[in-house]
């Protein structure tokens, strides 16, 4: 009797879990599906009004590939800009973050806590709050319409998190390794390059990916700081479709899908590192 009830209860729990799972799947994928639905349609400015693509084809992707529309004449160049932006942010964040966390965590710089506290402060500032003065300052620095201005902004927002994650992860590495290297006559820079960097590799990957995804996700600063077609990134270019009268939404969505591929691919490829990075450096109570 009891066993039967238990089994029924179990089946009910499983059914509930499956239901929740299906619900989550639909919830997560509905906007993604909408992107596909719009991109696979070759009617440019009409919404189809149906839930299946009436005549699915890859024409819009082909048009994007061949840059066959005036708004996307420079698509691949702008895609290159996005990649340069992402990679530069990634490299600089990893470099600056690892140097700082090495100095604070491994070399125990006196009063180094001031730096890490200040870093936390940046992390706590809403980025939109800084945007308006930031644009003015970039004009003063002579960096208007320059990728470097955006790189500076992204590095500024990615580094604090990088420092904290690396600081946390660095605690797992025994100090004796640094000391042994020092006794063998290594200079601090050699300790950094030959001991610290190789041992920190997983955390550095996590931080690098974080910086890349942050950059890919960010729109406001790219929009405000880049204006010419030549320096524009894909994120800025996508938004230009809203200002155009013809509104070829299928091209826009095809671009959106292509633009989303790198972060999603990186996410699936390096998922393990990112989750591990979050778990080691993340919120622990």
């Amino acid at each position, binding site marked *: 009797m009891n066993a039967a009830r238990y089994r029924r209860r179990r089946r009910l729990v499983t059914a509930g*879990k499956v239901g929740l*799972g299906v619900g989550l799947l639909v*919830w*997560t*994928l*509905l*906007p*993604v*599906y*909408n*992107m596909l639905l719009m991109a696979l349609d070759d009617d440019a400015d009409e*919404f189809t*009004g149906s*839930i299946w693509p009436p005549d699915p084809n890859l024409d819009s992707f082909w048009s994007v590939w061949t840059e066959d529309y005036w708004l996307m004449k420079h698509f691949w160049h702008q895609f290159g800009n996005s990649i340069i932006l992402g990679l530069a942010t990634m490299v600089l964040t990893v470099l*600056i973050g690892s*140097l*700082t966390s090495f*100095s*604070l965590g491994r*070399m*125990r*710089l006196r009063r*180094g806590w001031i*730096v890490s506290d*200040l*870093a*936390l402060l*940046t*992390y*706590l500032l*809403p*980025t*939109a*709050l*800084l945007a*308006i*003065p*930031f644009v*003015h300052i970039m004009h003063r620095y002579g960096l208007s319409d320059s990728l470097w201005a955006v790189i*500076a902004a992204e*590095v500024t927002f990615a*580094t604090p998190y990088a420092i904290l994650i690396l600081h946390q992860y660095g605690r797992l590495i025994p*100090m*004796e390794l640094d000391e042994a290297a020092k006794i063998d006559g290594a200079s*601090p820079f050699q300790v*950094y390059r030959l001991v610290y960097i190789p041992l920190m590799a997983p955390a550095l990957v996590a931080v690098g990916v974080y910086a890349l995804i942050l950059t890919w*996700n960010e*729109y406001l600063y790219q929009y*405000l700081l880049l204006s010419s077609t030549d320096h524009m990134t894909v994120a800025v270019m*996508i938004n230009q479709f809203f200002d155009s009268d013809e509104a070829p*939404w299928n091209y*826009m969505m095809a671009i*959106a899908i292509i633009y*989303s591929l790198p*972060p*999603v691919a*990186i996410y699936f490829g390096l998922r393990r590192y990112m989750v591990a990075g979050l778990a080691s450096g*993340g*919120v622990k*109570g």
Partner: protein
Amino acid sequence: MSGSRLALGSGRSAAVSGIWPPPWRWMLRGSDTAWAIAFVVPYVAVFAAFVIYPIGFGLWMGRDPALYGLLFSDPLYLTTAINTLLFVAIGVNVQMFLAFLLSGFFLSRSWWVRSLLAIYLVPWALPGLVAFTSIHFMLVTQWGLLDSLWRAVTGGDGPLFLVSAWIAMAANIVSYIWKWMPFWTLVFLAARMAIPRDIHEAADIDGATGYRRLVHVTFPLLANVYLISTLLSTIWTLGDFTTVYFVSSGAPAKLTEVLATYGFHEAFDFGYPNLGVAAMLSALPVLIPLVLLLMRRVRVTGVQL
């Protein structure tokens, strides 16, 4: 750093290990200090040039009290302030609570739950601009995907989502949750996995299962993570621009703007950068206590993000 490790490094420090301030200074002598300083210089330079200077400049731009008089006399500003409050309060709390519950679901080790987790996290990796534009198109006009689904299910025409201020506001909040809930679920999942197994076993023996275990065991253990995450998310959401700018774009009739988009329009569309800065700065009375509280929590509990 444990005392025993220090003891291995130096006999002198072992004698004073465990006393505050920590006995680390022996490590830095002469040229080493120079190296250590050289290593932090890049970050300090970035911080000075791109954080301190803009903040100072922003405060200077919004220094005139008359700006705030102008701001508060704008009825649109009041709507915007209320919207921001709703957006943050509902968005953050619903997101955190659901993320907390879902993290329990994702603890399951079965293959399909793990694959579902991988897909569930995709919104986090998807660029906000792209995802929110797609959601915008699901809602706008009566030929969007949601209206088509509505028609397929009920046969009648669906509502015009972005014509009602309430629905448009709800759409913003729901989209925000869609994008960011996965990230917080992951944070809670990591925290839950860090709970030692024997605590749950002890709770089992004492007969605390199901929701009792959730309320009396798991939640108290995660309370600190929950609080810190909520504070952080609140601060970030206050400055969130992308969601509202792309999902509702302020429609209908600018009734769904939040401070970030309002400040943006004032500064760059209407050409009043000082007013835009003032709009952003008007969030400071809320923001500063939150930041202080958060820093205190982080300091007291030694939690770092």
